[in-house]
Structures are given as structure tokens and as C-alpha cells.
């Protein structure tokens, strides 16, 4: 246990706590190989929040589950590199991966009712998570720790509620319990996979506040997965937009939100209703359907749905996959688009619409 390799809290170099480098995840199925994630790279520093946005099937959950090591190794092809605190976790033994999971790296799932075991008391499920990484702790200590965590996430009368079963909790409380369980071992890195999608708006706001509070206290890195750009705007320092299993835009939250560099991101932002806009006006959807991951489109994955392919000379969009490169705005804002100056093109399109 004391071997220095396993001490993942101290990164080997000065690189960010989580570094995902050229991650590719494929699932062999009866119909063929599903390219769930292709060549994905991103990093998250301690204390920072990265928001990952995308439609269902864009690879946002799959890539995160790869970091937590939740894919069945026999049914998944994973390549590339994932370094957590300097430790390469692709190809890590199950034994050592298990020590990381729920300890250094924890995950909050979307549907807390389905994600908590229906047969065990909430307190026991929390204690179990604690005991998994504190084998020398007594049951009593683990239970007390569980109750303390329930208290920390704002569940009233935690010592009594710990004896309840998940179905006796309300939706918001279940999600709080889920968060308490994920944070019980003080993880350095927390994945939150659509933690508020199933909740109503007021409870959603409470949960987001709670996560921000906890991040301040624990200083952990958070990867926040959602399709809700409003949530991203509130939570994230950086944003990664995924489409068809690839990163299509990556930059600081403010830059991506105010000056999108990729027609897909722009489409997402345009489809959000604004308070000041005409209530009778139709929302602007992105036409078409998400791409098949079994037979990904050639060229840019977004080209069959893109409104701006005409602005690119020739049939470049159909033929060639654009690289994820910095745009005119600076080196920190990456985009995957053939448009010479996407921000300008998109701006013009937005203005035309408003006039």
C-alpha cells in the first residue's frame, strides 16, 4: 500500500489532476463496432469544474465512465491515456482500479432512485462506501461518518433518515444522499453525470448550490455532464462540447457561451429561449438527428446537419475531418470547424435572425 506509484494524490509533474489524452472507446456489438468516443482529450485542474455538453449518444457519459473504470473490460475497447494525479489508469489492474474508484474518483449518477440499491438502508449504503476504502474502520465509525455526510448535504434529522430506504426519500433527498455517498471518501475528482436532470427546477438549484459549496470545502475537481447549457453556465469554469463521440469545441465557459466557434455549439445556444424574446416566436431547433456511431459520417461529423457548409469552399466538410485547433480568439479556445472565421459567420447569422 505504501508503494509510491499508488499515491495518486501527488501528480508526478505539474500537469492537471485529470488528463485525458486521445481517448477512444469502442463497443463491439452484433451490428458492428460502435465508435462511442474518438480521440478525446481534455484536462481538469484541482478545484476547477469542467462542463461536458452534448446530446444523448455524444459520448459524454461513456468517456466519463471510462475514467471511473466502469466499463466491462471484456466488452469494451479503450485506448489512449487517462492520467489521474499522474497515474495512468488505462490498463491498471482491477485491484488498483478498485482502490481508486469511490476514493480518489467518485461519480454521481443521474437517476438516484435507480442508482441506490432498493434493498439496503441509505445509511448502510453510505457506510459501505466508507468501509470499502477504510477497511480498518469499525461499522460504528462508518455509520457515524455516513450520518455526518447526510448532515453535510443538508438532510434534516440525518441519524433517523439514515435508517430509511431510498424509496422513502424524496427525489431531491435521494440525490443529496447520492452526493453524500460520492463524497464520503473525500474524492479529488468528482464526476456528476446529469445529477439534476430528473429534478424540478427549485431542487435543481439547491443541488447545484450544494455541489458548489462542497467543491469550495473539499477543493475537488468536478466534471459536470449535462445537456443543459443553463446549468453549465452556472457551474463550469471550462466547457467541452461533444458531438458524435468527438470533442468539437473546448474553451472557457464565458468564451464558449458568448462567442461559440462551432455551428453545433451555436445551434445549441440559439435553441435556448430567452426571457426577453417574443413569446410567440418559434424556437430554432438543430435540424436532423444525432449521427450513427456505428457508421460515423465522413468528414466533419456535424456536416449533415450544418447550415454553414456552403460557406466552406468545395466539399471540404464532407471529405475531411477538421482538426481541433485554436481559433482567432486565442490558444485556449479550441474548435473543430472548417469555417475560416466561425465566430464572425455565426454572429452574422444570429444578427440576420434578429432583424
Amino acid at each position: 500500500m505504501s508503494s509510491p506509484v499508488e499515491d495518486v494524490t501527488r501528480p508526478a509533474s505539474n500537469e492537471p489532476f485529470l488528463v485525458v489524452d486521445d481517448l477512444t472507446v469502442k463497443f463491439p456489438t452484433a451490428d458492428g463496432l460502435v465508435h462511442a468516443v474518438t480521440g478525446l482529450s481534455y484536462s481538469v485542474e484541482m478545484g476547477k469544474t469542467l462542463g461536458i455538453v452534448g446530446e444523448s449518444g455524444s459520448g459524454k457519459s461513456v468517456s466519463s465512465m471510462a475514467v471511473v473504470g466502469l466499463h466491462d473490460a471484456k466488452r469494451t475497447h479503450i485506448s489512449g491515456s487517462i492520467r489521474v494525479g499522474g497515474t495512468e489508469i488505462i490498463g491498471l489492474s482491477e485491484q488498483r482500479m478498485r482502490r481508486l474508484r469511490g476514493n480518489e474518483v467518485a461519480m454521481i449518477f443521474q437517476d438516484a432512485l435507480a442508482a441506490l440499491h432498493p434493498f439496503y438502508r441509505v445509511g448502510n449504503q453510505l457506510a459501505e462506501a466508507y468501509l470499502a476504502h477504510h477497511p480498518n474502520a469499525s461499522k460504528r465509525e462508518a455509520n457515524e461518518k455516513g450520518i455526518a455526510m447526510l448532515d453535510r448535504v443538508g438532510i434534516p434529522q440525518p441519524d433517523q433518515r439514515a435508517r430509511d430506504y431510498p424509496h422513502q426519500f424524496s427525489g431531491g433527498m435521494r440525490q443529496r444522499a447520492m452526493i453524500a455517498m460520492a463524497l464520503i471518501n473525500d474524492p479529488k475528482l468528482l464526476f456528476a453525470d446529469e445529477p439534476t436532470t430528473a429534478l424540478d427546477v427549485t431542487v435543481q438549484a439547491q443541488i447545484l448550490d450544494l455541489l458548489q459549496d462542497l467543491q469550495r470545502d473539499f477543493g475537488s475537481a468536478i466534471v459536470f455532464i449535462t445537456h443543459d447549457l443553463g446549468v453549465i453556465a452556472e457551474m463550469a469554469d471550462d466547457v467541452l462540447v461533444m458531438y458524435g463521440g468527438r470533442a468539437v469545441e473546448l474553451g472557457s465557459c464565458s468564451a464558449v457561451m458568448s462567442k461559440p466557434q462551432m455551428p453545433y455549439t451555436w445551434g445549441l445556444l440559439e435553441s435556448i429561449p430567452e426571457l426577453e424574446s417574443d413569446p410567440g416566436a418559434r424556437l430554432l431547433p438543430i435540424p436532423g438527428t444525432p449521427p450513427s456511431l456505428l457508421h460515423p459520417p465522413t468528414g466533419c461529423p456535424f456536416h449533415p446537419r450544418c447550415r454553414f457548409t456552403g460557406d466552406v469552399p468545395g466539399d471540404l466538410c464532407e471529405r475531411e475531418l477538421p482538426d481541433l485547433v485554436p481559433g482567432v480568439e486565442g490558444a485556449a479556445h479550441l474548435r473543430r470547424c472548417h469555417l475560416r472565421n466561425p465566430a464572425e459567420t455565426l454572429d452574422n447569422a444570429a444578427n440576420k435572425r434578429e432583424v
Partner: protein
Amino acid sequence: MFGYIVRRLIAAFMVIVATSIIVFALFFYGPSNPGQVVCMATSPQCPAERVHDYNESLGYYDPVTQQYAVWAKGLFTGRDIEFGGSTYPCPAPCLGISYYTRQPVTELMKERFPATLSLAVGATMIFFPLGVVLGSLAARKRGTATDRLLVGSSLVIYSIPYYLLALLSYLYLVIIWGVFPQPEYNPITQNPWLWFTGLILPWLVLGLATSTSYARFSRGSMVESLNEDYVRTAKAKGLAQRTVVIRHGLRAAIVPVITILGLDFATLLAGTVFTEYIFGIQGIGRQALDSIQDQNFPVISATVLIAASFVVIANLVVDILYSVIDPRVRLT
């Protein structure tokens, strides 16, 4: 919970009463002649007159409702049964007396039941753990060679008619190769070792044959539960693989399997006809088969009644067990 159990017990009682009425009706409205049966049991010559006398003394010419009332009353208070000029006491719970041996049927059942109970318990100890373990293993390894081997071999055994499997095992393992001793029932109270060795082959054959359906059923249930979100959560907590599979996966997967176990066990208690017949075990299943051939009505009706009671009670036990395993189930 208490009110629920009381209501269920009342319902169970109604089912048993209904079953007994149906059995009674089937017998009396069918082509039956108990006087003939009783008479033939005593002498080869049966003039119509004597048959009539026997039927008269058995009350066969009384209205069916009255006969049912007499029978039902005897169940609680006991009664004296007379035929052929002699009176036979039948203490409560009286299920009638055998037309052949003239023993109270309750006595016969008490004599035969331990053998059937031993068979049922022993076989269950084999098929339930074996089926669940193999099924879970196949579910864990689904899609692999291990899975295909387990599913395939269970299908092969399942598709062999049970009586053929039992007969062949008896023929080869006992008679030709002599691997197992001649199967027989010895009460466990007299000699536990003889009890064990006498029943080991019937247990194995019945257990193995029954385990195949449990293996397939557990596999299906386990595949489903291993795909549940809460199993993923358990894995994400960093629990050991074994804990994830057993404590989180199997615990949920076992619930539907237990439902089937309850009913199967009740059916086994009502007699394992083929097993008892082929291995020569004197249990109530074999007795039921003999009494059907002999038209020994009191024994038939008693067997059906007992079988119905077991099934109804097993159902109730399973439902109560359900609420213990799954906290979401509240019995009201």
C-alpha cells in the same frame, strides 16, 4: 401485516375448501362405484347385491352435499366409518379410510410423508444452490464459452424426459456399475447414515434435473440485475467484484427465483411420483398413483387436499418472505 396474514389465511382456507368440493364433485358425478371397489378388494365374486350393500353403508346413495358434510365434519371431529358390517374408528383429522387396508387415510399419509419430505428437502438442497450458482456464473460470463457451455448443458439435461433420466441412472449407476446402493427410504431417526445413502441417488437425479430450470431462470434474473444502475453504483464505490455481484446483484436477482422455489417445493411435498416410483421409495406420490389405479377414493382426495394446502401455504410464505427481502413491498 398481521391483518394481511389473517386475510391471506382465510383466503387460503377458502381455496382448500373449494379444492375439496371440486374433487368430491368429480368423483361422485364421474363413473365411480365405491361399493364395487370395496367389494373387489375383499373377494373376487361381487354380486350386484353386495355392491349395493357396500354403497348403502358408505352413504353413497345420500345426496352429495350430505356426504360432503359428513366428510368435512369428520375432518374436524373424527367419525366412525362402517362398511361390510364392521365399524372402523377414524379419529380427527379424518380423511376417510382406505377401501383396501381399512386403515385411516391420515395414518397412511403419516406413514408415507417422511419419505416424500426427505426426498423433497434433499433435492431442494441440491437444485436450488446448484441452479442459482450456475445461473449466476453464466450471467457473469455471459456471451463467453463458459456461458454457452452452462446454458447448453442445462438445455440438454432439461430436454431429456425426466423418467428416462431417472431410469437410466438407476439402471447404470445401481444395477450395472453399482456405484450407488439400492435406493430405499430409512427413517432418519433410526439410522441417519442409511437414510442418507438410501436417498443420495434420488436426490442427485431429481436435484440435477430440476436445477436446469433454476440455472436458466437465475441467469435471466441475474443478467437483468447486473445491468441495473445500483450495481454500477456499487462498482463505482470501489467495492470488490465479489461484493458487487453477490451483495448487490444476486440479492435482487434471487427474489423472483424464490417465488418459483416456493411453488416447486410445495409441489414436491405433494409427491414426487416418477422419483418415488422409479427408485422404489414409498412416499405419498407413489401412494397417489397406486390409489388412482385402484380407485381408492379417500386416498386420492386426501392427496389432492394436502397438495392444495401445501401450494397455498407456500404461496403465503413466499409473499411474507418477499416483504422481508424487499423493503418496498409492504403487506397491507
